[in-house]
């Protein structure tokens, strides 16, 4: 079941499954088969049946605390040992509530209650998750409550088959888990593309007029749309960007968005397409203007016909089947489009970054000569070896970049930490700021030193929001300098084509490399001799190393 959901996200898994209830033994004492398998992700599927000791009414507070610690430490030992053995990410279930309450309602508040005990144990799991990277909680406590605990905990399945939940609940568990995994691999959605009439407000602004739209606290239907607007706006803090795609006169759309009771304002959107074009064409334009693949969009429209067209014409886009306004939030939320695993400070500013880019395009229009335009941006870059504070962002970038990505090699946070600690790598990140704002860390190059004087470039990525700013030349200059310091004579570059990285297919030609080979799939190998003189290519960015 998990495999189906993962395949749907474009992830092809290989599984190793522990023997039944042997997670503790495998983790703590080791297991050759597991060692050979060397997992990237370890999922520990436990339930409250795996809690071996609960408080009883005879226990005093100290005894109960001891029981809590010993149950927690048993799990902690599993995680610590697994992290020692494997360079892997761990996903751990929290605990669902017990299926009966010995103390009735007091089971929740009294330290003798199982409900209370499970809540405290979960809390300790969360503290571990907050302190340890590469460790995530699969929140079965929440999904079992959504599903209905009585059904979830159908004891028939436990006693008959030792299943932790009833069989029909397994898809919900698997989907929830697959969402965490796809997020770790950078396959979250990145943007909303929103219809207006009867999606963001009740009514049709062109027909009914702004004053008659349902939005705001006065009537129930207005409240529903207000809450939905708030829900969408909250996504901005996760770095999700908002766009409009509506069949409307532009003036009417803006008038609707300026409704005094609306929480979303025209300013909250990066791109507003309000016209009478087919919506799939608008989406194509939005995708190009944002430099984001349309498969990272969530298209929200109350009209099933529009959803159908978009679904048919735009590959990979999500079109949640929203039905009635009071269900909009629930339906979108349960799809797990924006599952948060690694959250970086960059995400908070994402909308601003896209806005700044819009301003840059306006300014570009005032220059005849592109180099003059670049100089006018007064760009400053920081290019240097990896630093601990950026590792999370670097890993995130390696998982998110699809277009400007020569090898499309993905690095988990653990992988990046390994590269950082290994002297056989030259690893550079680049930050870029200009008069309009700071773009943060936007490019990464990882080169592997082999045979003493060869540098093989494993990864070269750049965020598309700094395309055509000559940042790739500034990176090249620094890379060559660092390589020379390490007595490298030849740099090897690799290009592996994917559906999305065509824009860099001649990247190494442009950097002055010589093409050595190209196979029938278009995989290319390049080399550059740096033992002779190298002329710096960048003259528009001031670089601090």
């Amino acid at each position: 079941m998990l495999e189906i959901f993962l395949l749907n996200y474009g992830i092809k898994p290989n599984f190793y499954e522990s023997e039944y209830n042997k997670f503790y033994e495998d983790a703590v004492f080791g297991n050759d088969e597991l060692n050979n398998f060397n997992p990237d992700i370890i999922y520990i599927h436990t339930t409250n049946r795996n809690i071996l000791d609960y408080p009883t009414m005879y226990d005093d507070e100290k005894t109960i605390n001891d029981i809590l610690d010993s149950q927690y430490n048993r799990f902690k030992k599993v995680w610590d040992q697994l992290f020692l053995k494997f360079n892997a990410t761990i996903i751990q279930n929290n605990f669902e509530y017990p299926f009966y309450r010995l103390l009735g309602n007091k089971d929740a508040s009294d330290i003798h209650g199982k409900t209370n005990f499970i809540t405290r144990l979960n809390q300790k799991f969360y503290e571990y998750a907050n302190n340890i990277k590469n460790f995530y909680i699969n929140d079965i406590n929440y999904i079992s409550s959504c599903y209905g605990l009585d059904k979830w905990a159908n004891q028939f399945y436990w006693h008959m088959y030792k299943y932790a939940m009833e069989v029909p609940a397994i898809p919900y568990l698997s989907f929830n888990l697959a969402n965490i995994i796809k997020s770790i691999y950078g396959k979250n959605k990145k943007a909303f593309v929103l219809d207006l009439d009867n999606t963001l407000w009740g009514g049709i602004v062109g027909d009914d007029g702004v004053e008659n739209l349902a939005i705001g606290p006065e009537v129930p239907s207005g409240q529903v749309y207000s809450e939905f607007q708030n829900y969408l706006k909250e996504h901005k803090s996760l770095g999700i960007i908002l766009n409009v795609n509506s069949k409307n006169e532009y003036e009417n759309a803006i008038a609707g968005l300026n409704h005094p009771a609306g929480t979303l304002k025209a300013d909250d959107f990066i791109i507003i397409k309000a016209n009478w074009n087919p919506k799939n064409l608008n989406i194509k334009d939005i995708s190009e203007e944002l430099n984001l693949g349309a498969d990272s969009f969530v298209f929200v429209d109350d009209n099933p016909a529009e959803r159908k067209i978009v679904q048919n014409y735009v590959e990979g886009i999500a079109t949640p089947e929203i039905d009635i306004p009071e269900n909009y939030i629930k339906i979108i939320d349960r799809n797990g489009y924006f599952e948060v695993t690694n959250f970086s400070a960059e995400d908070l500013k994402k909308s601003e970054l896209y806005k700044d880019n819009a301003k840059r395009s306006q300014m570009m229009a005032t220059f005849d000569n592109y180099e003059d335009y670049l100089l006018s941006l007064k760009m400053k870059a920081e290019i240097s070896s990896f630093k601990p504070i950026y590792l999370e962002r670097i890993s995130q970038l390696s998982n998110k970049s699809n277009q400007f990505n020569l090898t499309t090699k993905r690095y988990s946070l653990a992988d990046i930490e390994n590269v950082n600690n290994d002297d056989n790598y030259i690893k550079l990140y680049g930050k870029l700021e200009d008069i309009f704002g700071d773009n943060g860390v936007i490019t990464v190059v990882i080169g592997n030193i082999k045979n003493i004087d060869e540098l093989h470039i494993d990864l070269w990525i750049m965020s598309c929001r700094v395309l055509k700013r000559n940042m790739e030349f500034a990176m090249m200059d620094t890379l060559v300098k660092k390589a020379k310091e390490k007595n490298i004579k030849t740099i090897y570059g690799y290009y592996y084509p994917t559906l999305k990285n065509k824009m860099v297919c001649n990247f190494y030609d442009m950097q002055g490399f010589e093409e050595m080979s190209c196979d029938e799939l278009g995989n290319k190998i390049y080399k550059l001799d740096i033992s002779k003189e190298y002329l710096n290519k960048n003259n528009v960015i001031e670089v601090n190393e």
Partner: protein
Amino acid sequence: MNKEEIYERLNNVFRDVFDDESIVVTEATNSSDIEDWDSLEHINLIVAVEQEFGMKFNMNEVTTMKNVGDMVNIIISRINN
């Protein structure tokens, strides 16, 4: 629903679960007659039968049924109530 119809629908469920179009179940069919019918497939079979007939077996029924005939008797008693 008569017995014949139940057998026909049940046959389809079996073919689906064990992915074998040659299966023909009779009253006497049991787990030794179908090669893939192990404990794990048994769970899938029970869930699939429950879905097909919109009913649930209880634990006692699942643990005591010996062959398809027993299963059909339980289904008949359940859908007639």
